[in-house]
């Protein structure tokens, strides 16, 4: 009995020590931070929630790389000093929410960037809005996101804008009348893409021959594709993320399906070419981001990104990069790290020139910009004509 008691005491003592040392560490770092300001620059803590482990970690990697690259440049300019605090959401709603709560309550951030998925945004944004913390999605393209609240923004064009642009270009060029639709039915993003595709197909009077679904991380699409092949469509509308999408195209081409694919935003990545190789030819997407553009700003960004991370930036990296610049611009105008001041300054953003083109926010906080329609030809993305 006495031994047990002693043991308990020892455990409690160790815990207390650990707690004390943890607290000590905290107060030290926060002391350092407040010392840093005072030379005219605005110090701001910005929380980043990104999908860094698991199936979609590729997106999180690109997004956080985009933020970091932008932040290094912004720091060099010296007007705004942003401290990025990155949390992993693992692509899960509950983890995204707890990360957001941690960032807002313990880290006391002025602003949140992310999370990666629309699914996650739908739970995180209401919470941020309630707490009066501005939040900007850089990759959340499902409908209804900026409408969640006054503090919710996004700089990624919604699928409802990008997909119709891609579909109508493809229909015009190939004189398509019959289409097959293939989409991932276990993700808000790909499902919302499907809803848009269905609507566009109806509006354009296209005959939908068959609608097939798949799930995230599936390896074998032969059954769905054989069925699609049998219906002989002029076009295949495919709402998929690039990991699945590239494999679908690869298996489709091997099977002898050679009609063009029209994809959504998630399909738009150089990774598609890397994974599917020649099979990726004939993919049509509408996108805010075109890395092959001759624009000087775009080329400097691409070169810098390649130098830093060893691969071409995709749309997600570019959107993240621009998001941080938009934010820095807003913070500069706001002149403080006050959440409301930053929100108001963000809402006033108009005609901002980034690597994606000219961007403004409408009164709901949604992005206003022109998408470019691209196609993969000879193993690279080219403007679709």
């Amino acid at each position, binding site marked *: 009995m006495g031994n047990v008691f002693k043991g308990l005491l020892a455990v409690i003592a160790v815990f207390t020590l650990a707690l004390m040392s943890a607290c000590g560490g905290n107060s030290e770092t926060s002391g350092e931070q407040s010392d840093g300001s005072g030379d005219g620059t605005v110090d701001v803590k910005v929380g980043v929630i990104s999908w860094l482990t*698991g199936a979609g970690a590729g997106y999180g*990697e690109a997004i956080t790389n985009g933020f970091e690259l932008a932040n290094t440049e912004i720091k060099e300019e010296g007007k705004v000093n942003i401290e990025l605090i990155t949390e992993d959401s693992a692509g899960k709603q509950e983890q995204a929410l707890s990360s957001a709560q941690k960032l807002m309550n313990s880290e006391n951030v002025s602003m949140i960037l992310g999370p990666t998925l629309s699914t996650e945004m739908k739970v995180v944004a209401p919470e941020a809005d309630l707490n009066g913390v501005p939040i900007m999605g850089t990759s959340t393209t499902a409908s209804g996101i900026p409408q969640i609240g006054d503090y919710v923004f996004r700089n990624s064009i919604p699928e409802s804008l990008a997909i119709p642009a891609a579909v109508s270009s493809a229909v015009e060029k190939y004189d398509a009348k019959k289409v097959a639709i293939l989409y991932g039915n276990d993700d808000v993003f790909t499902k919302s893409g499907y809803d848009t595709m269905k609507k566009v197909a109806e509006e354009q009077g296209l005959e939908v021959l068959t609608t097939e679904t798949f799930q995230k991380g*599936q390896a074998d699409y032969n*059954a769905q594709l*054989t*069925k699609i092949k049998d219906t002989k469509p002029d076009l295949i509308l495919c709402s998929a993320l690039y990991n699945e999408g590239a494999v679908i195209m*690869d298996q489709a081409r091997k099977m002898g399906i050679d009609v063009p694919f029209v994809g959504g935003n998630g399909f738009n990545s150089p990774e598609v070419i890397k994974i599917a190789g020649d099979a990726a030819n004939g993919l049509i997407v509408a996108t805010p981001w075109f890395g092959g553009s001759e624009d000087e700003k775009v080329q400097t960004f691409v070169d810098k990104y390649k130098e830093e991370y060893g691969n071409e930036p995709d749309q997600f990296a570019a959107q993240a990069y621009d998001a941080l610049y938009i934010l820095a611009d807003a913070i500069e105008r706001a002149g403080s790290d006050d959440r409301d001041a930053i929100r108001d300054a963000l809402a006033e953003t108009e005609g901002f020139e980034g690597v994606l083109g000219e961007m403004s926010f409408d009164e709901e906080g949604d992005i206003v910009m022109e998408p470019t329609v691209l196609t993969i030809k000879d193993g690279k993305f080219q403007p679709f004509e």
Partner: protein
Amino acid sequence: MLLEQLINGLTLGSIYAIVALGYTLVFGVLGIINMAHGEIFMFGAFMGVVVTHTLQLPLALAFLVAIAVTAMLGLFLELIALRPLRGKKGVSHLAPLISTIGVSIFLENLAHHFFGAGNRPFNTSFSQLSIQIGSVTIYAVQLVIFAIAILLMISLSFWLSKTKAGKALRACAENLEAASLLGVNTKKMIMLTVIIASVIGGIAGVLVGMAFNSVTPQMGLSMGLKGLAIIILGGMGSVRGAMVGGLILGLSETMIVVFGESGYRDAIAFIAIIIILLVRPQGLFGQPVTEARR
């Protein structure tokens, strides 16, 4: 077109069956479910990617490398996660299950670290080869997968029932202590079992890479769960059960897409399993449990 879909289903089913063979072997001898099997399978697939795509070496070498690497993983699995827990007093019978889950999480993240998060291509000219019979296209890959599945099943059954090592293995499965008393080197037999199961998983990995060109660090989980479902369907510890169960699952998944809704693919496949188990609780080829295991 139906014929092509049948072939698709058989290919998928053969792969499921090979994965399930690895599970059933370990369960048959050790009575534990090896949750790391899916991840070992994934490593096999990545070895295929490294050999054929990164190093541009021939496919046959991919099999050899995958076999070697997964055999090593099996050895480590046995030495690190299974043996320390075996035969100790007070160790819960669930402990090895948990420790293999630990290994699976470790392996998944290791693959993530080494190979990145995304899908990796598996480029081999072999996967383009096909035979055209009328309107039906059959791929060489599909034939190879089916052949390897059948070959593995036959040789495993033969090995288990006819050879001395196989008999020793079955003795271990029956009763570890009695086998040990009768002069069977149980330690060696168990290690051999885990290694063979892992190698089978590795071969399945390369086959999946070849057939579907889709290799990610997460592929182990879904394949692992399917494998588990199959051995429950076919009967725990039964080689024939794993084979037939795998083919049933693969074919039913494909046929659901053909005749109905692709969205219900997994749901209907698993509902079918539940129904079969209601009729035959011990699985298709399982023996009804008459006495408690050792």
